[in-house]
């Protein structure tokens, strides 16, 4: 599965778990350092206090000549071999006066611990463990001596490694819980958004009755969907008004047109001895009236098609048969202009649709091809199934279209200047109607054209079983 790194879900989780992990790691490191410091610090305090005790209570009682008694006194007072303690007293030249015996568990060898060069605290690593040693200067009788007192820090280490282990296990666990929990939380809060977007995708001008689901969570998303629904209401209203307008307008135009037409026709009928000149003029007005009627009809048809009425009937039909039959009905149009018209089809091509509309679509396209193909040209119509699509291809050797005109050919009333100047009939509504029919059948229509060479028109409609 591809993770969309730009998605809110991903970014939210990444930021949030990243932050929490950084906080947790910082917290762990600081805790570790504090505790380690604290443990060592308390060892240092204890050792310093012992050194002070040693010099105050024992050293003062002995002189430098009485080392045997001193050693016994120290051993008695501190029993270093039993308590794993390291004690050494040396003179200024590095000569050892007293050295504690090896501890009973032999975790370190006192002889191998180097003598301190200066007072202070130090860390003496010893095969895996270590000695934490505090050194201080004191006096034995009239001689200055250096006392080193150490303690193995195994226990300190143990405590710290426990902490370390907890942190090493704990932190990834925290990270995992944080991420998983975050995922669940974010997924839950984003679920309404997904529902919204799924429904929004279904809302088209043919499906304006659908509204977004209002998930009553009381949160911002509920507000959002309520507001979006209100927006869709307004859109739907505007759209319905627009389509009602074109229905009403063509409706209102029809009656006066009917009257004009009827008046003119009755003129022609009732005064048959009108001067020929006048008859011709009335006829010309009638022709234009018919033209207006046709445009009105086409606009009306277009708005109804766009309102989703294009598929009144929805039957399984063979596009190849439909096209072949229509070509035969129109063949005379091409013969009249000496255009070679051929149909190629690779067997039945079944689609789901309204045969009258599809026929209209095909007639509009073929008629265009005939109109814009000069005498002795050729038109090739091909119907085939390609993958899951029925493909109707109409290829002509006509005048073609300029590249800059191509984006506009599906606009209402648009006609290339060249075509306009030829004063051909039609009102520039054939292609928009063709496209509406095509879209109502879930199809697409594409036109490729080379000016002066010809045009190829592709109609693709989903196949049916």
């Amino acid at each position, binding site marked *: 599965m591809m993770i969309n790194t730009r998605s809110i879900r991903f970014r939210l989780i990444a930021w949030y778990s990243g932050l929490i992990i950084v906080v947790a790691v910082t917290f762990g490191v600081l805790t570790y350092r504090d505790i380690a410091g604290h443990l060592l610090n308390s060892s240092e305090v204890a050792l310093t206090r012992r050194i002070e005790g040693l010099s105050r209570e024992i050293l003062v009682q002995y002189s430098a000549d009485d080392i045997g008694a001193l050693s016994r006194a120290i051993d008695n007072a501190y029993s270093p071999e039993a308590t794993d303690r390291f004690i050494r007293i040396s003179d200024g030249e590095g000569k050892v006066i007293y050295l504690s015996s090896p501890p009973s568990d032999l975790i370190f060898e006192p002889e191998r611990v180097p003598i301190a060069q200066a007072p202070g605290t130090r860390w003496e690593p010893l095969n895996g463990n270590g000695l934490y040693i505090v050194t201080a200067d004191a006096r034995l009788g009239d001689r200055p001596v250096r006392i080193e007192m150490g303690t193995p820090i195994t226990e300190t280490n143990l405590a710290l490694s426990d902490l370390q282990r907890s942190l090493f296990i704990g932190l990834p666990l925290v990270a995992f819980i944080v991420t998983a929990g975050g995922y669940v939380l974010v997924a839950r809060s984003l679920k309404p958004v997904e529902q919204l977007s799924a429904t929004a995708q279904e809302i088209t001008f043919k499906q304006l009755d659908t509204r977004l689901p209002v998930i009553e969570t009381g949160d911002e998303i509920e507000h959002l969907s309520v507001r979006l629904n209100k927006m869709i209401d307004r859109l739907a209203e505007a759209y319905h008004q627009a389509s009602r307008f074109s229905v009403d307008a063509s*409706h*209102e135009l*029809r*009656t006066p*047109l*009917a*009257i*004009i*037409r*009827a*008046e*003119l*026709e*009755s003129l*022609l*009928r*009732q005064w048959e001895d009108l001067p020929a000149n006048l*008859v*011709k003029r*009335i*006829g*010309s*007005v*009638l*022709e234009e*009236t*018919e033209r207006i*009627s*046709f445009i009105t*009809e*086409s606009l*009306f048809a277009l708005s*109804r098609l766009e309102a989703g*009425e294009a598929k*009144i009937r929805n039957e399984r039909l063979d596009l190849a048969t439909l096209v072949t039959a*229509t070509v035969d*009905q*129109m063949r*005379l*149009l091409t013969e*009249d202009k000496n255009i070679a018209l051929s149909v190629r089809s690779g067997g039945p091509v079944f689609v789901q649709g309204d045969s*009258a509309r599809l*026929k*209209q679509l095909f*007639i*509009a396209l073929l*008629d265009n091809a005939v109109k814009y193909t000069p005498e002795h040209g050729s038109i090739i119509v091909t119907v085939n199934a390609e993958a899951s699509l029925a493909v109707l291809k109409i290829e002509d050797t006509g005048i073609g279209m300029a590249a800059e005109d191509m984006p506009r050919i599906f606009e209402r009333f648009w006609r290339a200047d060249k075509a306009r100047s030829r004063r051909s*009939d*039609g009102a520039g509504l*054939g292609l928009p109607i063709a496209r509406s029919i095509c879209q109502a059948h879930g199809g697409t229509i594409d036109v490729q054209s080379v000016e002066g060479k010809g045009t190829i028109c592709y109609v693709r409609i989903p196949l049916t079983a």
Partner: protein
Amino acid sequence: MRVLLVEDEEKLCQIISHGLKAEGFAVDTANDGAKGFELAMSYPYEVIVLDLMLPGVSGSNVLKTIRQKNKSVPILILTARDGTADKVSHMEAGADDYLTKPFAFSELLVRLRALLRRAPQQREDIISIGGLEIDRFARTVKCMGQCVDMSAKEFALLVYLAQNKGRVLSRTMIIEHVWDQSFDGFTNIVDVYIRQIRNKLSDRGLASMISTVRGVGYVLNDGT
């Protein structure tokens, strides 16, 4: 022949009424649904022309009520609404024909006459007009005694013109009769066919049988 015309647009009502009277019909007119219904119930009309958009009682209701009273009078719907769904629903409600505004008067006339020919139209197998002889049974055309080859569509068009001799037929009517409505407006197919037929007839010396009535359509006369 008594006709009831229910149409609220007075001008249109007047013109249609004049036109029909000139064609020999007796015409009663009503400008709203209630009056239309009253008249329809009171007199034995031979045909009713009914607009759908009427003040008061709508045309659809008038149609339904007349049919509920079991009146079998033929009803032609005249409307500015042309949705195919509308058409189907009114045909189902008992209308006999449906004509969309704006229409050619001659079309209304042809449709009314068709409705009035209650019995199957009296159609001779052989139609003879001037030097033209059409055998509908054998599907042959003779001009001045000579056979003329015609395609199926040309033949259908010629028969349609011949059956309505002297009457102007609009392109729409011809398309509906000989092809189907899908061709309406998109093509000049009728003109091309008429030209073909004319050429074939004039080759045999019958040049002026089919004439063009500009803005209206075509008419076949006996060529005199």
